[in-house]
């Protein structure tokens, strides 16, 4: 006890200020932008195999094709809103692949690959986007606000960073209950500025929460570039400041991200203690369909991340290098797109949630007040139902 106290109090007789970039954390990478393993990477390659990587590839294509279709559908007015995952498919799938179903996920809103990997399929996602009677959320939320209690994925919520202290809290509960699972929250470089992020990481380090903080540093928060978002050496160093084991990883390198996530979970359970992982990536799409990124980004930057530092292309090159590319990428893309279109048609033709469900879910059971209001609405619709699209309700 005394030794620990003495260790933390070292004196210096020379005055000096620690430079803000005195600690600069390097980015862990296994395969380079050409999809080839780095010279010292061979020790890590045994952690992955052909089947795992091909499954990752196919899931990334699912995300890519799903994004492409639904972005277009929004522009055509078929759905009102959408948020793409372009550029971040790699880190989504790679982190999810290293976790178990009994780990709890707290997403932000750009983690479709995590959903798909865990079994939240294309059809369910389509129902949510069309907000129809089969939507698990009963038509209560905007598009892309998916969630699944069965798959231990918290519903996507709109306010930024609120999910972070909540993940710290759940991770604390897991520790108290001696569980060998962890809570994982995802958040962007912009959300990392929120006060909730600070509170979460600070508290998690004192409560030794079994929580993995995954920052998707995609370089933009709507139009705000990282240089306007923070003055530190990214988000990874902040973890150190809070007393948390931290790592920075190349989020567009699925192998590095997968391995880092595996090791992070081991480290969390060994503590127990929280871990921060900053995944460097790039948001190729607009913030959402309400944004037009061409107003504030230049073409060269976008092209670089489309052609060179693209997680899907890098993995494809690696598979080719290893002689594991036993499928035709174009065929996979086409087949995936066909499946997504079929699911879209099913979702589109479903009826809308019936008006009665509006009163459900406020509490566990309807209160007398709500029952009364529901009765009044029933009477009202009996007379004026034709002024509403009741025939489209389920």
């Amino acid at each position, binding site marked *: 006890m005394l030794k620990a106290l003495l260790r933390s109090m070292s004196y210096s007789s020379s005055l000096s200020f620690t430079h803000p970039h005195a600690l600069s954390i390097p980015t862990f990478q296994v395969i380079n932008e050409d999809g080839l393993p780095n010279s010292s990477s061979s020790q890590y390659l045994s952690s992955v195999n052909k089947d795992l990587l091909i499954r990752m590839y196919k899931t990334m294509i699912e995300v890519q094709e799903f994004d492409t279709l639904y972005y277009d559908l929004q522009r055509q007015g078929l759905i009102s809103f959408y948020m793409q995952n372009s550029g971040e498919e790699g880190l989504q799938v790679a982190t999810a692949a290293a976790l178990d179903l009994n780990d709890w996920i707290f997403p932000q809103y750009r983690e479709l690959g995590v959903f798909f990997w865990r079994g939240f399929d294309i059809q369910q996602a389509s129902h949510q986007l069309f907000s129809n009677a089969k939507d698990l959320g009963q*038509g209560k939320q*905007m598009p892309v606000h998916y969630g699944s209690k069965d798959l231990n994925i918290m519903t996507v919520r*709109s306010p930024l960073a609120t999910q972070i202290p909540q993940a710290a809290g759940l991770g604390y509960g897991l520790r108290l209950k001696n569980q060998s699972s962890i809570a994982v929250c995802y958040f962007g470089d912009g959300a990392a500025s929120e006060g909730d992020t600070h509170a979460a990481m600070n508290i998690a380090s004192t409560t030794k929460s079994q929580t993995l903080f995954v920052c998707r540093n995609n370089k933009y928060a709507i139009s*705000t570039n990282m240089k306007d978002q923070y003055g530190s050496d990214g988000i990874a160093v902040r973890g150190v400041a809070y007393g948390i084991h931290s790592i920075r990883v190349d989020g567009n390198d699925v192998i590095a991200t997968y391995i880092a996530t595996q090791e992070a979970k081991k480290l969390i359970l060994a503590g127990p203690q929280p871990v921060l992982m900053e995944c460097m990536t790039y948001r190729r799409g607009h913030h959402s369909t309400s944004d037009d990124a061409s107003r*504030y980004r230049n073409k060269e930057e976008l092209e670089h991340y489309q052609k060179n530092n693209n997680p899907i292309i890098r993995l494809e090159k690696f598979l080719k290098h290893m002689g594991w590319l036993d499928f035709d990428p174009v065929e996979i893309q086409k087949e995936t797109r066909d499946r997504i279109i079929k699911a879209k048609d099913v979702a589109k033709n479903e009826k809308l*949630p019936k008006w009665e469900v*509006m009163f459900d879910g406020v509490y566990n059971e309807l209160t007398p007040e709500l029952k009364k209001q529901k009765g009044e609405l029933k009477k009202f619709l009996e007379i004026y139902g034709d002024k509403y699209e009741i025939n489209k309700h389920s």
Partner: protein
Amino acid sequence: MLGLLRRRVSMTVKEAINSAMDEEITRDSRVFLIGEEVAQYNGAYKVSKDLWAKHGSNRIWDTPITEAGFTGIAAGASLGGLKPICEFMTFNFAMQSIDHIVNSTAKIRYMSGGKIHGSIVFRGINGPAAGVAAQHSQCFASWYSSVPGLIVLSPYDPEDARGLLKAAIREDEPVVFLENEIMYNKKFDCDDKILDKDFILPIGKAKIMRQGKDITIVAHSRMVGVSLEAAEELAKKGIEAEVINLRTLKPLDTETIINSVKKTNRIVSVEDGWPHGGIGAEICALMMESEAFDYLDAPLERLTSADVPAPYAKSLEEIFTPRAVNVVNACLRVCNK
């Protein structure tokens, strides 16, 4: 005679807010705009369009994403003598900073025995919009109106927006200015007097949009438009409704409301916030507590949004907020027709 030949100007609500901010920032060096995306991006809804280009980074300040953070900074600046306009992308996000708004800016004058206070305007969109569901649609009119120490304004048209925002910025109090996203792009034909750089509307004074003798309809923000629509329908049925645009929610213009009820003897309130403890509830209490009670021929009826978090699906959204048909029906009931 010439006074009758006033020129008209066509303007959207968004343009009104933009021009009011522009003029006040130019007029008073202490005024500045702070918020997310307000500078080069011109604002999440483009309300601060061209302001950064004109006034620069010292007066138009883009912040990192932390409502609690930048509201705290703005509150501190106001206590130090500056006059911030603190923009929230939506008041729904201001829940993360409500402690700064209520516990700091609203209460500080009282707690310091009148010695410390700050001038600050909190503005942003409020209430249900279109297709943005539970966490983007809450109306905070009654929450903020319940706090002693805050002024709460709710403009409807460009005249309201310009006159009330300028008044708010010049005011030496914390003001909550509730805008409406659906109204932003609505164009109105206005009296050109509103273009005057010193065009100020009085805080605490409602406006009678339409005179009538049979029933009083009280509303604020977008529901004023819905009420006017209902009044047209009622006129066809021989009922002349008097539509009051509240403009200020705190302090409420009780005199205008009471005088109207003394004339019409019947009243309906319309809002798109929730019923429990809403603006209509406050007006209801007013009817009970004031001399208006002796003039009522029927109880007040309130129209509010449904008592649920705002749902998303179209089938649910269209039954969630009051429409003209609901206002007409309520008026018919209150008129015993």
